[in-house]
């Protein structure tokens, strides 16, 4: 799938994924045989109508939830059969998260929030890299503040820093700019794309916003739990048009 046709290095892969919520009458098929790979060092966006299964897909890809059927591979590790403890470690060491809201632990300062995954692993964060990331997101003078003392945009930047500081195989973001104004939104998108270009990170981002998705290297479209389109190097107009057809 890569442009030059050579063997692709996958940051994360989802193979034949099916996710069914509930059972019997109330069963909802949120994912229906989805197979998709996310390339290393790329910025991938996921779009689709509300309820199409975007959140479900990234939650399962990030090993936050288990699939009903199918496989998830992070880097070179098959996460499918792992027990809870191994899965937790996999998340801690190889996956970073940014959610739409409630990203940070309210009792910890920004610095402590960023260092929390290393803390969980019982190691000190790499100080040089830590400083680099903090400077990149421009949080140097806000490190000792609690989340409640930060603006929404600043909170999201802390979340981005936390995701970056562990140098994970893949960073998963579910509508990270959903609650932000356009200026803050742009900043966050900048950080995410710089993470791929400058730091070589892999980012998967769910979004409703064609402007945001246009910053990505590739956009995957989801509808009714299936992949319906896959666009490389999209333009805003392309995306708007595609969204329009899906909404109908």
């Amino acid at each position, binding site marked *: 799938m890569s442009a030059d046709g050579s063997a692709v290095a996958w940051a994360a892969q989802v193979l034949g994924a099916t996710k069914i919520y509930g059972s019997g009458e109330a069963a909802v098929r949120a994912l229906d045989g989805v197979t998709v790979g996310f390339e290393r060092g790329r910025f991938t966006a996921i779009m689709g109508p509300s309820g199409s299964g975007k959140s479900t897909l990234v939650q399962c890809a990030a090993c936050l939830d288990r699939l009903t059927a199918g496989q998830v591979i992070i880097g070179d590790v098959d996460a499918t059969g792992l027990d*809870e403890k191994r899965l937790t470690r996999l998340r801690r060491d190889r996956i970073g998260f940014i959610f739409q809201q409630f990203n940070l632990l309210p009792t910890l300062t920004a610095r402590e929030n960023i260092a929390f995954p290393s803390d969980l692993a019982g190691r000190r964060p790499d100080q040089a890299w830590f400083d680099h990331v903090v400077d990149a997101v421009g949080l140097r003078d806000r490190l000792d503040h609690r989340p409640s003392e930060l603006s929404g945009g600043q909170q999201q930047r802390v979340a981005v820093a936390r995701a970056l500081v562990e140098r994970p195989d893949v960073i998963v973001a579910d509508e990270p700019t959903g609650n932000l104004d356009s200026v803050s939104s742009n900043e966050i998108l900048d950080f995410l794309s710089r993470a791929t270009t400058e730091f070589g990170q892999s980012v998967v981002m769910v979004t409703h916003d064609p402007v945001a998705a246009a910053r990505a290297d590739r956009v995957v479209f989801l509808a009714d739990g299936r992949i319906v389109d896959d666009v490389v190097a999209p333009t805003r107009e392309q995306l708007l048009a595609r969204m329009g057809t899906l909404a109908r």
Partner: protein
Amino acid sequence: MLHFTLRNLRAYAPRFLATALAVIVGIGFMAAGLMLTGAMKSALLGSVDRQYAAVDAAVLSFIEFEGLSPGVAPEALEIIERTPGVAAAAGELTAPVRVLGDDGESRTSRTVGRAWIEDPGLSPLEIIDGTAPGDGVVLDRRTAADLGVEIGESLTLATPIGRVTRPLVGLSEFDGADSIDDGGTVSFAPADALAVLATEARGWDAVLVRGEPDSPDLLSRLAGELDSAYRVITGETLRDERQAVTAGVVDVLRPVLNGFAWVALFVAGFVIANTFAIVVAQRRRELALVRAIGGTPGQVQRALLAEGLAVGVVASALGIVTGALVSTGVVVAVDRLGYRLPGAGLSVTPLLVIGCLLAGTIVTTLAVLAPAIRAGRTRPVEAMREGAVDRSGTSSVRAVIGGILLGLGIMVLLGVQVLDWPVWMLGPGALSLFGGVVVGGPLLARGFARLMQPVAQRAGLTARLAVDNTVRNPRRTATTANALVIGLFLVTVVTTSGEAFKTWATDQLDALSASDFIVASSGAPIADDVTSAIDEVPGVRRTAPVRTTLVVGNTAGEVPVSGADVEALRETTGLEVVAGSLDDVIAGSAAAVVDFSTLTLGGIGDSEGSANSGDPGAGSPFGEGAGVGDNVELVLPDGTVRTLPVAATLRARIDSLTLGVLVSTATLEDLVGPQPVNLVYVRTDADAADSVGVELDRIVRDFTGIEVVPGNVFGQIVGQVLDFLIAAVNALLGVSIIVALVGIVNTTTLSIHERRSELGVVRALGTTRGQVGRMVVGESVLVAVLGTALGVGCGVFVGWVLIGTLGDGAVPFTLNAVRVGSIIAAGVLVGVIASIFPARRAVRIDVLDAIRAV
């Protein structure tokens, strides 16, 4: 992770305070009990050591039976004083004495009269003002100060021989303290003491001996000089024996208080588990986030356990401080009431502090274990979802296990009651019942709410919302209610079974006594003029003075032998002959003994009675051979053995039990010489009982140690003792109920906090403050009613089974509706009180704020 825990402790301190309160109350109670009893015990032990510090040897009478002892004869003291190696010897003698006011009323209680010990080495008391007793008496400094009397003043004293007047000649202290005796000490000169505190029949309580230095064979020399009626012991042994007596009370008190503290802590465990679970539930998203970022279940659990541990340590420490404050308060309050607690201070030992810290911390940690483990299982995706209804606690596994335990408990208890299964199964049965209530609690709570729903429907919207809120989280409702269940269950068991037992026991005892009054002395004899004064009281039909003394039996230890006018005794007490005839007893040629096989307290004595029915004498202290036609053999003081034929056996009644071997007054005198009267049975004319009682009280007022008790006194005493026990146990269990109350306050407050935005919406839609307040009160009361219903229900059931096991069902189970009603009222009241604080909070929620916080 440690700083995560510390940060959380700081951030959630107010919520943890609620958790801590339960531990503080429980540990506070435990610490207060230990501190007070510890201080009392060390004071009592220490004062015994100080009192007998210089004693090298002591001489006591061999015969000692239930406080009856002939003591050490004054002549024996002279022999001891002359024994080589003895540096000093003194008689010890104590008896109750009261200082009387000008109006003849007592101005002191529990004051002890003592023989002054002249040897300064042996005497525990020191004169700090004036002189040693001599012709007058010496008061301890505090009693003198309390009474406001000064040296030279004349004191009127009630003593065992009646009213006496002595000048106050000096003031004493005891090794820097006021007095040996908590109620104060009046010291008499030795000869005076023998005359006033004892009588010719009774000598010194003990003779204390100080040996010459280097006289190792002091003990054997003393034993050689004295006859075999005396026991010669070392000072060490004396101190041990006295300590065993004085500290015995504390040794009993301590485990009892501790037991109640553990019940309170057990209840606290439920409250902690619940509060902690709620605090954790409120942080579910946060914990899910930790899990999402890579925190393992173990890490989440350990972080929460560390929080619980920290709360436990801090709360236990606060509990110890609370305990110290409470016991200081108790000491002050008791002092205000005019009593002096021995020790009157606090004993705070490292062991106590460590013990209380450990107890509180362990209970807290155990209690947070379940919520912490459950929290570890939080799924990471929950970080991204809005809270949903918690249906936990209503699984079918829970229903099955709870149902089995409940059924098993009921079955076992019914088996004990109806099918006569062994009594020990009562404990496991009750435990299983309780386990069923705990495990099945959430389901019971849901069922209860279903039951209440139709009622609430009619009572209006607020009531309906209140009921709905209790089912929202059945486990939470159940655990809150369970804390109350434990306390009320125990209160109900104690009250119902105690009441039933009391009613039955007093009835039985009342039927056992026929005399209208008993004038009884504790040790000191009843003077002849008292006996004749009683005879002359208008309304007295007949009196029977009884002289009881201890005589060594030929086959079995000491036996009480009583001499009385048998005719008079028969008339005053309704003496009943089982076999034989009293004629020979009256004539003085034979004795009568009590047939113990007739001792039947309803069903309780029956089994023993039937086992012995073939041999009437087997139950008596004389062993076999004491039926009619057998002989009683007595060893007289001069060593000769006298044989008396048994002419009659008496039915065992309260009045006859104390008699032992009954002979005529003349026979007794013939056997052991003249003996003083120590009991007078009084029969009054019909309707004269009240006036006679008043007159009798007046006659004995000047005599300490003589008491007038009504004939049904045993029933009354047992009734009062049981009433006191029931009240005391319930008061102590009250601590557990306070802890449960704290639990309801916590749960309701936290759930209000949780539903802030929801309550905001409800208010925005037009609900009045009053309605919101009533809804919160309703919720709290519902939880209390659930707890009360379960606790009282199980309590009555177990009480019924418990009473059934006594005497094979001889004790009827009577339910005192008033008592049970007041327990139920108390339970509901707990709910109302518990709702005050949370309801105020709910009412004060600012509508806009609450909605914005969504």
